[in-house]
C-alpha cells in the first residue's frame, strides 16, 4: 500500500463521546491512554474535535437529547471514519434498555463498525476494537 494509505491505518485519531454512559466505560476508555495501556503505541491520539478525529468511540445509551449531539459530531468527522460502540450500553442500551428516556444503543442513531461488549468493556477489549476497526478500514482502503 502507498504511504498515504498506510498512514491512514497508522494514525487513527480517536475521539471519545460520552453519550449517556455511567462513567464505567468512560474511565476504561480513558485508561487506554494511560501508561499501562498506552494506545499512543498505535499512533492513537485522543482528540477532542470531530474535525480531527478518525475513530469515534461512543460509550453509553442514547436518549433524544444526546442523539442530536451524536449525529452532529458524527457528521462533522471527515471520511473515512470508524465508530466503536463501547460497553453493553453502547451496543444495545444494556441494562438500561427499558428505562423511560433511553432509545437504545448507538446503532439506533449512527452506523457502528465495532461493538465492544462488557460492562464496562475492559481497556484490552477497547484496544481490540480499534485494531479490528483498523483491519476493516484496511480492507476498504485496499479495495479502493
Amino acid at each position, binding site marked *: 500500500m502507498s504511504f498515504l494509505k498506510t498512514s491512514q491505518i497508522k494514525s487513527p485519531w480517536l475521539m471519545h463521546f460520552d453519550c449517556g454512559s455511567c462513567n464505567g466505560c468512560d474511565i476504561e476508555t480513558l485508561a487506554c491512554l494511560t501508561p499501562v495501556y498506552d494506545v499512543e503505541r498505535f499512533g492513537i491520539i485522543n482528540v477532542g474535535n470531530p474535525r480531527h478525529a478518525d475513530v469515534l468511540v461512543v460509550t453509553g445509551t442514547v436518549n433524544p437529547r444526546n442523539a442530536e449531539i451524536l449525529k452532529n459530531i458524527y457528521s462533522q468527522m471527515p471520511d473515512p471514519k470508524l465508530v466503536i460502540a463501547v460497553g453493553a450500553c453502547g451496543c444495545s442500551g444494556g441494562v438500561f*434498555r427499558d428505562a423511560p428516556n433511553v432509545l437504545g444503543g448507538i446503532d439506533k442513531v449512527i452506523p457502528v463498525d465495532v461493538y465492544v461488549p462488557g460492562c464496562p468493556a475492559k481497556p484490552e477489549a477497547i484496544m481490540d476494537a480499534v485494531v479490528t476497526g483498523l483491519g476493516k478500514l484496511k480492507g476498504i482502503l485496499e479495495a479502493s
Partner: protein
Amino acid sequence: MKMLPTVISNLFNKAATRNYPFFVRDPFVTARGELINDIDRCIFCGSCSRKCPSQCLEVTKEGTMGTWKLEFFACVGCGVCVDSCPVNCLSQKPTHRAVAVVRETIVMTGKLPEKPAKKTAAAPAEQ
C-alpha cells in the same frame, strides 16, 4: 519543578506499558468475563432469565427441545445468572468476550432433561 524526579526516573526506567496485543497478561482467575453455558447440562428451568437484571436471557421450551438465548451485547456480566443456576451449567470465563463487527445473539438449543441429552452445536445467529 516538583515533578522533576518522577519524570527523570520514568525516562530511565522501563515503561509501565503492557504491550497488549503482543503480550497478554494471565487473567485473574476470579474475573467475570465471557458468559458460557454448558448446554448439555442445562435444564432450561429459566431461573437465570428471570433473575437477570439486564433481561438479556431468554429461555423457551418447545416440545422436547429447549432454547437458551443470550443477547450478549446487553449482558452486563454481573454473574447473577451464574449464581442462580440450579445445575451450575453457567459459568464465566476469566477473559473478556471478543469484540464483533455485527451484533449477534447467542442461541443454544438442547434437549429437555427428561430424555437423555443430545447435543446440538451452538449456533450464533445474526440478529
